[in-house]
């Protein structure tokens, strides 16, 4: 059974601080996606990474896919209250159409 473990589970920080969220698995994924979900809404895609070692930047967010394609990280620089939400990673294996979602990291950024 494939599992994606996210850490930390909860994170409460002050505005302006930096943070990193991790997504780890013992399985290899052909691609990995990061989503943000706000209360009462469905997840919204932030980024997809497909190549081992790939780094993508989205404004203050930096995403990295591990060299072995088993793990990923999301780094937020100078967090803002608008970054508050549930961050989810999701992986898909080669040749399948099924996505495995991580356990989630709930982030709260205090003004």
């Amino acid at each position, binding site marked *: 059974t494939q599992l*994606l473990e*996210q850490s930390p589970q909860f994170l409460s920080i002050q505005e302006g601080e930096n943070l990193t969220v991790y997504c780890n698995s013992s399985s290899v994924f*052909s*691609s990995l*996606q990061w989503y943000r979900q706000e209360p*009462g*809404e*469905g*997840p*919204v*895609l932030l980024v*997809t990474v*497909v190549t081992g070692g790939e780094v993508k930047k989205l404004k203050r967010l930096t995403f990295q896919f591990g060299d072995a394609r088993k793990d990923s990280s999301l780094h937020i620089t100078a967090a803002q209250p608008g970054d508050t939400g549930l961050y*989810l990673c*999701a992986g*898909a*294996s*080669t040749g*399948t*159409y*099924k*996505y*495995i*979602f*991580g*356990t*989630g990291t*709930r982030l709260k950024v205090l003004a």
Partner: protein
Amino acid sequence: NAGVTQTPKFRILKIGQSMTLQCTQDMNHNYMYWYRQDPGMGLKLIYYSVGAGITDKGEVPNGYNVSRSTTEDFPLRLELAAPSQTSVYFCASQRRGTGLVDTQYFGPGTRLTVL
């Protein structure tokens, strides 16, 4: 475009009742998915479909059934509702579902409580 729409938004069921959660997408996507999300947790795949007439089980299919008679619609049927099925249900669609670079678009969810 409306994207992915789900009805109802909220529902309370009694143990043993049945219901159908509706999901419709207007993006002509081939792939559609049903997930459940328990409080504070990630999403678990219930069923998915790669096209009209084709469905397959996900991680947690027990107690649910699906059908895909058209590209647009992917209803989820709950038979004999149980308290363990209390959750928020999300439908999603994707253009190709290759697992590479295509985006899954999610509906707003249906919050179901079984008492």
